[in-house]
């Protein structure tokens, strides 16, 4: 098992899905922060350190994309991976251009959770590495 433990924010309004992600990441040794709305998530990332975020798109209130835009201003180094149940989702251009946003979009249900874990680690490592290089 890789020794890199991350602090991961799971943003999803479906409790079962959010809990399953949280359980999975905790089992993998990560610290998990949970939020069922984008508004809560924004508060969380300001009060607690988070390295990465799993972001659902369709949310009541602010949607996942706006969350990413705000989060990018508050915590530019937060690695974001989109997980959505919506079939019609296409990554908006402004988000696709962000280094902190994964080009890989995971569709619910996520049958290969380890791939999600790997992408989070890769992206977070990439961001951290870039920072060190500076």
């Amino acid at each position, binding site marked *: 098992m890789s020794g890199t433990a991350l602090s991961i924010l799971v943003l999803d309004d479906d409790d*079962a899905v959010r809990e399953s992600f949280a359980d999975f990441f*905790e089992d993998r040794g990560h610290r998990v922060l949970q939020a069922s709305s984008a508004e809560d998530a924004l508060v969380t990332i300001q009060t607690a350190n988070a390295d990465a975020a799993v972001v659902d798109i369709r949310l009541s209130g602010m949607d996942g994309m706006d969350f990413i835009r705000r989060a990018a201003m508050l915590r530019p180094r937060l690695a974001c991976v989109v997980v959505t149940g919506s079939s019609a989702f296409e990554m908006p251009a402004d988000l696709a251009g962000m280094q902190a946003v994964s080009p890989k979009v995971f569709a619910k249900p996520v049958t290969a959770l380890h791939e999600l874990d790997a992408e989070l680690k890769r992206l977070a490592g990439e961001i951290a590495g870039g920072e060190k290089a500076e």
Partner: protein
Amino acid sequence: MKWFFHFHSGIYLSVPVLLFILIPAAFPLQHSQNTTPPDPAFVSMGTLSSLYSFNNDPSGTLSNPDFFSWEEVLLPGNSFGYLDQDRAFYIKKNLFVLLFLTVLLVAGMSAFWQRKTRNKLRKTAEHLKTTLTSIGDAVIATDSKGRITCINPVAEKLTGWSATEAVGKHIAEVFIIVKADTREPAFNPVARALADGITVGLANHTVLIAKDGSEYQIADSAAPIRDQKGSVTGVVMVFRDVSEEYSIQAKLRFNEDRLRKTLLAANDGMWDWNLLSGEVYFDPRYYQMAGYEVDEFAYRLDEFQNRVHPDDVERVMENAQQHLQGVLDRFHVEFRFRKKDGSWMWILGRGVIVERDQNGTPLRFIGTHTDISERKQIELQLIQNADFNTALLNAIPTPVFFKDREGRYQGCNRAFTEIMGVTPEDLRGKTVSQLWPSEHAEVYHKKDIELMENPQHQVYEFKIRDKDGTLRPVIYAKDVFRDHAGEIAGLVGAFLDISEQEHAKEELRSLQNYLANIIDSMPSMLVGVDPEGTITQWNAEAQRQTGIPVEEAVGRPMERIIPQFADELDRIKSAIRNRQMQTDLKRRTRQGNETRYQDVTVYPLIANGVEGAVVRVDDVTERVQLEEMMVQSEKMLSVGGLAAGMAHEINNPLGGMIQTASVMKDRLIDRTMEANLKAAGEAGISLDAIAVYMEKRKIIEMVDRIRKSGSRAAEIVQNMLSFARKSDSTRSSHNLAELLDQSVDLAGSDYDLKKKYDFRKIEIIRKYDEPLPLVPCEAGKIQQVFLNILRNGAEAMHEKKEDLNQNEAYSPRFSLRLAREESAGRIRIEIEDNGPGMDKETLKRVFDPFFTTKPTDRGTGLGLSVSYFIITENHGGEMSVVSNPGEGTTFMMRLPVKDGRNG
């Protein structure tokens, strides 16, 4: 008495002189007939005596006949009969003179006889006798008792009595006379001369009957012979044969009568202007023809002038004056003359000078008046008609010309002059060959002759060369005209310039062609019909669709030519009646296995004078099919749309389920996970023991089953979403291999299919070229195509399997091939099954919409046609099928790598 002696003393000289004068004078005709005019003195005297007798003659006309010949007056230009007119005058005058002198002579002789000596007397008597014998007149002398004493040879000849027979006989015995008209005995002048002692003048109309019975018209007279005492001692009678003279007079009377009647019949009046006296005689007819009583106005020139129309009188008198002056050889003038009732009559006045004195000064001017009112009226009418005709001809804008019988132009109208540039004067008398180019003239001439030979209205087309040299096509129309005798007198022709008509015709023709081309180029069947339903128009498409050529269709009843449209007749009639378009949309007809749809539109013809309608038939089968496809498509899309809406809601619970199951499995079997070890330690059990337990209770299997079921549910949703993912507006590049595989998966989850057999039992052989370029397409639609082909193939293979015996080995198989066709920039997709295949008949129609081999409760027959439509129409690709019965079927599709969408 003294005078008497004096007379006697000169008688010897006088008698011969007198005789010399008298004898030729008494018989002028013998000497001067047809020679020179007589001495003007005689003419003058004759004229006066004639006028005298004329004026005193109670009959008014009878005593004037010897004046001149009327015929010669009426036939101007001849010389006048001076000799004839004067002949009678000479005779009369000379008779008087002769008689007078003879009486003197005889009286003288008688006295002399008594006085002179016998000898001398005898000598004288001889002399006298010779004279008497020589004299041209008959002389008979009697004694106082009437006995003949002397008879000269002329008298002998006329009476037929010789002197020896006659002398001593009583005069009544020898000289037998009767009245010419009554044949009654005429009074014997001798008797009267004896009885009354007077000279008895000439008696006219007396006929002497000679001894031998022959008769002579004679003029006789008798004078008493007195002695010295004055007693009547005898009578000397002189007579002469006037038969000739009489017959001339009779002839004159006849002529006179004839003249009178002629004038009467001719309605002519006569006037006679004495230029010396100024008196103008008007004859009765002159008065009557103008409605006046005879002699109602005086014989004066001013009476005539007053009755001539004021506008004409000057002209009339001028004409008369010119004749009198010798400028005109005759007086000839037409003028209006006032009738008694005040109205005007037209008169033709004619006349000539008939007498002049020796200086040539006119003395007498005679002529006639002819009533020409009727002729004048006709003449005026003719002038008006001629003027009218000229105006009419000139008013006509059509060129008109006329020719005589020989084909010589006689004239033309203004329009002719304007076009041909020749005036009536230019062409009058000329022939066509003198006027026009020979190649035209020949035809004109030929046609003229034809018309003359067959005088019926002639019409023909030819050409003219106008004044500018332009050749113009024309239509000629000609007719002959006839003279009063009904003989052809010439021809009248007209021509019409039809250049513009020809031009218009040409334009019309090209317009017709143009319209016909348009109509024939129309993709619709167009059938023109009249109100009775008879076909009037049949375009190329109608011919193509029905196979009936236009010649067979036009003019025949529509219901016979196209019986399938018989039920449209009511619609056609209604359209014509109401002048409203009528439509019958999506009319359904069955042609063999195939259902065809037609839109029938009936347009009433609303142009003036054209009754009927145009029936337009459009085959809209394809459109209807497309509409059906659209409906189908819409259905699918709505399924897709529904799936899209549902997908998120389903995916979340599926996520909760599957992901939780994954985490659960990790927690149950991962013996390295610290949280697991820690929890197991706290529970006092080892992970190994848990693993044994789970093994025994198949917990892990159950968790996996949960995950798989969830995953399958997720896949179904995913596939359903593929219908919706590509809306019409979006098209993106796809990997055909992925799409094909997804379609295979989808077919496997097809509930209808699975009910019968498991699609997953079909062997799938894939042969995909690597790498495959992405293809721009609507994935949902392409998948729909694949799915349809797979489903059909699967069903066919299933049927084949069911048809086979259990023993026979058969394993259904799909071969899926994807190949690059680089040169064409396409990818070829082949889906081959090993099913029963199709016969040629089916193969030909497999893409036809609604064509299906399946029972009606299954399948719409749209599937393959929609597929065909999607590949060819939506994606600009190609689709075909190859099959042989028993050998399976291969569908081949080609999709362009570049966007092949139209537009």
